[in-house]
């Protein structure tokens, strides 16, 4: 990895970002050079005591020149800026919209480490293995302060917030080991909060997945957590307590007791576990205790995966 200039291009977006980078460098470089040359030229030609001819009446000469150049040096930069803006924004918007078939990987940041979980249950710390050529989507949250997931070789960076899920996606294009940095200052060991992204050939990746299968997959881990934390006591099939049935819940609109309706997404489930009294589903009593302080963000993600895996009841007869 070279330390001069842009790092290796290891994602599909990196190439396009670099093209834009070089284009902007070229335009600004030429302009800066133009200004520099003009300054040096005028500086030498019109130094005090030089023989160069000056206009009799400089203010009037300036006024004449102004009419010619002022509009030009306002409009030309404007046009260049608009092009750069459109070009850059297109890449940015694409970066914000992950494809539907992306592999979902869950990221939990905490002072000062990255914890990553594959949908198959493989868990990693400060190292992430991904296959080449396949879109990967990261769903990220933080357990404490704001962090930022930064992979220079992918030209990608996204802040990771506590209390919210942010996303980032990419398709790696080149096998190798790349730096992962935390880019948002997060306290004492901020500079040590890093790791590696390991891009592997899809076949190698499959092998890696199998070798590291040790644990059960994420939804299965969620299911056992569901029992461990006693969720099944109320939300389970045979529970006598009047609690919402979670089968098929994910992605559906949920009417709340205050008349609002929210979509049961990651955030809703997350908040319902930690702050059960904030958004009460209509028709239910606010009796669920809060699990704040008892359950880690990575366990919550496993629970979410489990709830996602629950198909609506009529489709899955028991």
């Amino acid at each position, binding site marked *: 990895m070279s330390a001069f200039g842009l790092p290796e291009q290891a994602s599909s977006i990196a190439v396009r970002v670099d093209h834009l980078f070089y284009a902007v460098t070229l335009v600004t470089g030429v302009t800066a050079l133009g200004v520099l040359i003009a300054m040096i030229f005028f500086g030498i030609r019109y130094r005090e005591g030089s023989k160069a001819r000056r206009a009799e009446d400089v203010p009037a000469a300036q006024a004449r020149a102004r009419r010619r150049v002022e509009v030009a040096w306002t409009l030309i930069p404007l046009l260049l800026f608009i092009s750069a803006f459109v070009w850059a924004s297109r890449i940015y918007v694409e970066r914000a919209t992950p494809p539907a078939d992306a592999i979902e990987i869950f990221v939990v940041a905490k002072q000062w480490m990255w914890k990553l979980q594959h949908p198959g249950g493989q868990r990693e710390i400060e190292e992430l293995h991904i296959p080449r050529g396949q879109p990967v989507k990261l769903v990220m949250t933080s357990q404490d302060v704001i962090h930022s997931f930064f992979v220079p070789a992918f030209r990608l960076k996204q802040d990771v917030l506590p209390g919210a899920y942010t996303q980032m996606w990419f398709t790696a294009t080149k096998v190798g080991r790349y730096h992962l940095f935390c880019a948002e200052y997060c306290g004492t060991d901020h500079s040590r909060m890093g790791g590696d992204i390991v891009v592997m050939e899809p076949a190698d990746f499959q092998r890696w997945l199998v070798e590291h299968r040790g644990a059960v997959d994420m939804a299965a881990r969620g299911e056992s957590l569901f029992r461990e934390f006693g969720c099944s006591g109320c939300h389970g099939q045979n529970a006598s307590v009047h609690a919402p049935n979670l089968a098929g819940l994910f992605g559906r609109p949920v009417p709340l007791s*205050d008349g609002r309706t929210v979509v049961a997404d990651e955030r809703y489930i997350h908040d319902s576990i930690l*702050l059960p*009294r*904030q958004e*009460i589903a209509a028709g239910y009593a*606010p009796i669920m205790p809060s699990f704040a302080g008892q359950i880690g963000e990575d366990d919550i993600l496993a629970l979410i995966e489990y709830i996602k895996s629950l198909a609506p009841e009529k489709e899955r007869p028991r």
Partner: protein
Amino acid sequence: MTASPAPALGIAGQFEDVRQRHAAATLGMWIFLATEVLFFGALFFAYSIARAQAPDAFAAASRHTNIVLGTANTAILLTSSLMMVLAVRSASMEARRTTVMLLVATAVLGVAFAAIKLTEYRLDYLDHLVPVLDFAFDPRYERGARIFFGFYFATTALHLLHLSIGVVVVLAFAWRTHRSWSPELPHSIEIVGLYWHFVDVVWIFLYPCLYLVARA
């Protein structure tokens, strides 16, 4: 225009004449009030964002504020503004005694506002509504209510601070007017009045945000 000689130096030697001085002071006060708009504006903005995130908790918490005292205080403050504007008026007519009385009335109403506000704080404390002390609230809304009362105490305390400064300044001018008359007084009192009215305007917005969120 011709070059004019520098006037005798002393107070406000930087000004050419009284009119320039008045215009400068008025403009200065209004710019200061514009900064206050942004100061309190940022607070109202943060309040709105917090309220949008926990509307029910804010509604529930607001019901625990003391609307009788709050409304009475609003009326008192509006009346103090009337006293202030009348003081400005009588000062401009050089009615010295009336001016002093009206300024004192303004300050007394200000003190009454503060006294009621402090009583309210005491009642809030007894109701366990002070976040850092023994806060207790309906567990459904506890989190949001804590934020609401955080804003409640922060905003009212900042307002009270502004009001207290106003009371001191108004009393100082009452004393100055009582001691001796000077031709600058009407204008100075007018500028103090601008500040006083502004503190009133801040309260006009605080009142519905704190007391009237959901009374129905």
